[in-house]
């Protein structure tokens, strides 16, 4: 286990150094991601300035909700974004190279790339949350800090598991990037606004089918005190880590299965 971790950090370090060869790209990438998030928030701000609240959520509560998602997303983006490129690895035969080396191919895949724009997401999420925190009165203590850290990591894992499961499709069809992109867009559409505003079946969809509501919505409700302990759905705010672990287990099983039946594309 420790050996694996050491290997992984070594690989990631190599990827990072090779990325840093392109300084202009690095700066442009960071600025772009900040701009992207700024305009998403600006859209919400414009809407909320014309109407007072959205399904009972004020502007700063929504900024908090959004920032919570971005924080989880930032770690995913930094370390795992390139799962989207698995189809190219397979088509171009890079993945076959992973298979013949004496090291777990999954570890090699994870370590093969780093996406530094994740740092920009981290910045946006951190700053967004700090500003929102200043405008809201949220009771805060050690317990909340630990809970926040757990929730952010769960968010990362949920996104990671969903992406990994979709990436596995490439072992059968040779194509998955576009599907991953599509699901990420859906997830983004859902994360922008509180799930309260949707109809009942939609809430079921983002809770059970594509459980992205556990990334930010349910935890934010608890942190912002928008749900009372007597509420019949109160427990949903506590199970994000459980959802993350379950999804991770499913994705890992799918990965193993995909790998077992995989025979190279022959290119």
């Amino acid at each position, binding site marked *: 286990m420790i050996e694996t971790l050491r290997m992984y950090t070594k690989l990631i370090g190599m990827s990072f150094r090779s990325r840093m060869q392109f300084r202009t790209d690095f700066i442009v990438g960071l600025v772009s991601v900040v*701009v992207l998030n700024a*305009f998403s928030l600006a*859209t919400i701000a414009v809407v909320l300035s*014309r*109407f*007072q609240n959205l399904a009972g959520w004020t502007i700063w509560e929504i900024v908090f909700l959004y920032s919570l998602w971005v924080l989880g997303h930032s770690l995913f983006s930094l370390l795992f974004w390139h799962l989207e490129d698995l189809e190219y690895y397979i088509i171009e035969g890079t993945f076959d190279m992973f298979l013949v080396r004496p090291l777990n191919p999954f570890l090699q895949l994870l370590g093969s790339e780093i996406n530094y724009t994740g740092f920009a997401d981290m910045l946006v999420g951190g700053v967004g949350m700090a500003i929102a925190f200043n405008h809201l009165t949220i009771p805060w203590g050690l317990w909340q800090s630990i809970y926040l850290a757990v929730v952010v990591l769960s968010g990362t894992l949920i996104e990671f598991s969903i992406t990994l499961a979709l990436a596995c499709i490439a072992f059968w069809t040779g194509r998955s990037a576009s*599907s991953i992109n599509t699901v990420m867009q*859906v997830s983004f559409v*859902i994360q922008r606004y509180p799930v309260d505003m*949707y109809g009942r079946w939609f809430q079921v969809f983002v809770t059970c089918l594509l459980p992205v509501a556990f990334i930010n919505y349910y935890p934010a409700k608890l942190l912002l005190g928008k749900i009372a302990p007597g509420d019949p759905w109160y427990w949903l705010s506590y199970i994000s880590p459980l959802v993350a672990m379950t999804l991770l287990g499913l994705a890992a099983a799918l990965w193993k299965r995909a790998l077992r039946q995989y025979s190279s594309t022959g290119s």
Partner: protein
Amino acid sequence: MHLFWSFARQAFHTSAIYRFDFWLRMVSNFVWMFSEYWLWTVLYTQKAGAFNVTLEQMVTYAVMASVIGMSIRPGGSVAYQIATKVKNGEIIMDMLNPLDFHLHTLARNVGETLFLTATLGVPSFLVGHFVLGMRLPANLGQGLLFLLSLGMGYGVIFSLNYLLGMMSIFTIDIRNISWAYNAVVRFFSGSDIPLWLFPLFLSQVAGVLPFKCIYFIPLSIYIGKLGAQDTLWAMVLQAFWLAALAVVGRFAWQRAHRHLTIQGG
């Protein structure tokens, strides 16, 4: 012209290969449409008839925006196709071919756009109309004006995407820039929220940018927000931007010829 259509047809066929992807995109667009529907329905409970637009008109605007977004969107395939060609050197073939690159790219993209409209746009439109209560244009004339305006809007976004693709000849990688580009275009084109919601400063900025030609003008015509005279002026503005950007696009290709560096050449 015959050549134009044969390229368009070819693109139509290549887009049709991936079935799982297709269904996923269909579902994702339904999610998007429902999200827009709920957003405005919930907001309008606070302020009915905000900005002289009824809830029905607002829902029509927003849902129609996502229907159009199925086939016409910033950062569409044009920019990436050109960037990929620059990266792998294929662009050289385009420079040697006795074909007009600009028109060739347009033909391919028209084919793809028609394909997406037929397969994803039309079903989305039907769901929007029958499930979410999206209105049809008030009369045939308005519908035709909308289509004409949408066509020009398509021309504008194609030209902008083409120019973004041309940038790859000068800067090699456009993936990072395209994040910011997409966000700016989405915001100022009125695809996410209509521009009448903007505060004064932002609407002044939006006024001098070409992006509102893409979604905002066609959709305003569709829901009947613009009077006869305003419609005319809006379409003149679209025609102006379309012409200007097309000229810049041709100029960019000429410059590219002189500037080209092929990676790993």
